[in-house]
């Protein structure tokens, strides 16, 4: 149990956590506005990963496992394509499945969300075959060793992309008109509408942005975890949701912190307790947080109005 081993586990945990954070942002933004758990978000993450896969293949990546990778501009293009397709998917889901039931009792959209998630997962199994695929090396793999801890450029890319996207999101939400409108709708839908905000459009944008972030997470996940398969969204989506709840659902900083914490918890549990419990720890955290502090770390207590 040396120090370098601990640092390595922490590093791996943080990189995994950054991916969870990217996905959690989508959950948290949608919940903030619609009070809906978008169960299908995990599947959007998966579709994003596959979109990146096909984009990379289409753009002619060198498939050899330890291949030369991709020139940076093509890698960015693949990322953009994947994020774009995911955004379209997210908007389509919102329009077709969630909008019609927006005003129904709470249970109905929940069931619809479960239905969409189930649909996407199995449609993907049919379209992409259940066999796991190795992810094309969009980035060429380089390794650096720092004090006994191995850092690959993939891990660095994960941090870089995640941080960049989060800062971008923060700027978007704080400084742009649409971002402020999103915050307004999250605070009070009716008041926002009275202020002349096109709520439907804002909701669409929220889904688009959240889905794009999830797709970025999907590509990074594929690069880090080597293999992708159509069922990859289920568990990862759940963990990201727990991260959102941990941070305080509806809260963007919370989603980021929650994601990192869950990633760390998972990796440290796998390394020091047992890999068999890596998934259980996330659920345990979920139960504890909902029992002890349901509003999450950064959330506010909302009294239930009668």
């Amino acid at each position, binding site marked *: 149990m040396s120090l370098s*081993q601990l640092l390595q586990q922490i590093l791996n945990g943080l990189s995994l956590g950054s991916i969870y954070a990217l996905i959690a942002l989508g959950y948290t933004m949608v919940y903030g506005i619609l009070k809906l758990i978008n169960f299908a978000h995990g599947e959007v993450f998966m579709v994003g990963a596959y979109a990146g896969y096909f984009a990379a293949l289409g753009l002619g990546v060198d498939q050899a496992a330890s291949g030369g990778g991709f020139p940076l501009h093509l890698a960015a293009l693949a990322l953009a394509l994947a994020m774009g397709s995911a955004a379209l998917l997210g908007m389509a889901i919102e329009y077709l499945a969630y909008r019609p039931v927006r005003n129904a009792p709470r249970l109905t959209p929940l069931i619809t969300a479960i239905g969409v998630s189930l649909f996407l997962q199995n449609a993907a199994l049919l379209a992409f075959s259940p066999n796991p695929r*190795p992810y094309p090396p969009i980035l060429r793999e380089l390794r650096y060793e720092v004090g006994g801890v191995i850092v690959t450029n993939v891990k660095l890319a994960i941090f870089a992309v995640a941080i960049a996207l989060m800062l971008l999101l923060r700027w978007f939400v704080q400084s742009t008109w649409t971002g402020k409108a999103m915050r307004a709708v999250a605070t009070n839908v009716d008041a926002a509408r009275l202020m002349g905000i096109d709520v439907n459009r804002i909701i669409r944008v929220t889904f688009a942005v959240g889905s794009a972030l999830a797709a970025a997470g999907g590509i990074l996940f594929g690069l880090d*975890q080597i293999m992708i398969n159509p069922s990859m969204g289920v568990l990862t989506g759940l963990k990201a949701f727990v991260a959102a709840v941990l941070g305080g659902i509806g809260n963007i900083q919370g989603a980021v912190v929650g994601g990192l914490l869950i990633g760390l918890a998972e990796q440290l549990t796998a390394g020091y307790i047992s890999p068999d419990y890596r998934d259980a720890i996330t659920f345990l955290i979920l139960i504890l947080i909902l029992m002890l502090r349901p509003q999450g770390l950064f959330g506010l207590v909302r009294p239930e109005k009668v």
Partner: protein
Amino acid sequence: MLLASCAGLNGFACKKPGQAEQRASGSSAGSNAITIGHYASMTGATAHFGQDTDKAARLAIEQLNAQGGVLGKQLELVTLDTRGDSAEAANAVTRLIDVEKVHAIIGEVASSLSLAGGRIAQRRSIPMVSPSSTNPKVTEVGDYIFRVCYIDPFQGKVMATFARDNLKFGKVALLKDVKNDYSIGLADSFRSAFEAAGGQIVVEQSYSAGDTDFSAQLTAIKGSGAQAIYVPGYYSEVGAIARTAERLGLKVPLMGGDGWDAPDLFKIGGSALNGSYFSNHFATDTATPRAQRFVADFKAKFGQEPTGLAALGYDAVLVLADAMKRAGSTDPRALRDALAATKNFEAVTGSITIDKDRNPQKSSVVLEIEDGKAKFVALVAP
């Protein structure tokens, strides 16, 4: 109403009168084909197991039919997909017996699935020949269950002895898949053999089939000072494990068993697998003339080299056909006895003699991986 619906579903759901008699007499009156059932993982993470075995089995059936079939009848193979799931395996065997009315069954590759399917076959008294399940428990299910490959107590010893004597390793780490019987059993065999030979298992880690993240386990192994890692898992994870190990700067060789045997292993693992070893049933570059013929035929028909598992699939059909000829019928009990009496049958993967535990005594090859190819290194006799 029940009888009416029964009449309606007649072809599907209901027992036909006289079905019991048909089974016992062994010859399907009016049918002129012998149906063999094959349950295999044709899709899913271990799709290669099923697909490779099935291809070779079909080649064998084709060749046998070209020579006039068995007992004057043509052979027919019905394949059902188990998707790599043991509940599906049990269902597949039930369907093969009830709906497809097979006379005998071939399958499975994965030991967990063979156990699930074997229990059904044993209960229904239909002979089953597993081409490549190596866990000893499979044939312990009952007297109708046979196999044509060696078993894991031997396989574990092969690699343990090789690691100790040839590669001179004293400290090895174990990374096993806790989700399947094969991996657990093989890990146990390796451990006892390696420790008996004076080696030390410095750390044991585990994962579950389907996992994608092995960095936690490999980081722990890195800190243990192991000279090699024994990974008795399936190719679907081993490739990713090798890549992750390389990424973590873990430069030790990996060792494994016949679960590695699939072309996808090299596709995923790439250069991270260079210098790794695994035990297998068959090596294309040192085969006997009989085996060479099989390799040539397989390549001609399918455009690819056969894996060891494919060779075993081929052998399973041949052994079954030979037993039918010796029994003179497809009656389950006669077939069972004929299978149990198989002696010195010249198969592609060696000479097969079924012992009292319904297993053959066969040799194993050890292969080394270099640049996406497995090269023969050693032959180990039981």
